[in-house]
């Protein structure tokens, strides 16, 4: 019961801040709502006994990525944003279209059935989950882990290569 209330709270805030995020004129506001959203998603993760992920969510997403966004947003003059239209001219149609997608997905999802899982905390105590995670990550998912590192490298190289001031 309590869980449900907590979940409801998180869900409401998440959806609210999402909607705010995509409707703000000023991207900086959007970024801030995004921050809010991430926090609450982290909360949902906690609710699902994924404390480690919650942490990652906060540190990487909120801490790193969003801040990066913030920098760039500020780097490029955004005051233009205030004057000009925020959405392209079809936005009402697209909103309706969005509702269609939502309806369809949720319809299909609800009509569907998932393998009966029972909502109980994982057998290993909180925190121990992290070790399990680590073990899997470095044994079973070794290759993907390495690949992920390469991806980051590519991102790095790419970003530097593209964005660094042009010589000559």
């Amino acid at each position: 019961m309590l869980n449900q209330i907590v979940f409801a709270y998180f869900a409401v805030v998440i959806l609210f801040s999402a909607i705010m995020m995509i409707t703000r004129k000023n991207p900086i506001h959007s970024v801030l709502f995004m921050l809010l959203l991430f926090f609450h998603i982290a909360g949902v993760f906690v609710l699902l006994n994924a404390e480690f992920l919650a942490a990652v969510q906060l540190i990487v997403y909120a801490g790193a990525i969003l801040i990066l966004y913030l920098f760039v947003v500020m780097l490029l003059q955004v005051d233009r944003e205030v004057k000009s239209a925020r959405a392209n001219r079809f936005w009402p149609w697209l909103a309706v279209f969005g509702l269609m997608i939502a309806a369809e997905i949720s319809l299909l999802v609800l009509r569907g059935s998932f393998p009966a899982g029972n909502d109980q905390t994982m057998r290993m105590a909180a925190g121990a989950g992290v070790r399990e995670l680590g073990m899997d990550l470095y044994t079973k998912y070794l290759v993907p882990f390495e690949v992920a590192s390469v991806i980051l490298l590519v991102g790095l190289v790419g970003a530097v290569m593209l964005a660094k001031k042009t010589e000559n």
Partner: protein
Amino acid sequence: MVPLSWYVLLSAVLFTIGVVGVLTRRNVFIVLMSIELMLNAANINLVAFSHYLQDLTGQIFVIFVITVAAAEAAVALALIILLARNRGAVYVDEFNILKG
């Protein structure tokens, strides 16, 4: 007890909001963040499932998703900076020399 379907529904709606954002907003940053919304929707799914399935794969998947998102964001922002530099364009609908 929170039924699984609630999480799924939440993620579905979040996903949709992301889609709408991608489709409607002119500001490229917000478009990018909307995509992040969609990713997060997927993440919620993954974590929820992994919880209900008593299986960690979902969580691991999420870690990778976040990593990728970071790299993607880096490249994206680099390109945006280039465009802003070369053409002063930060609006998605300003990227339309190429068409036809």
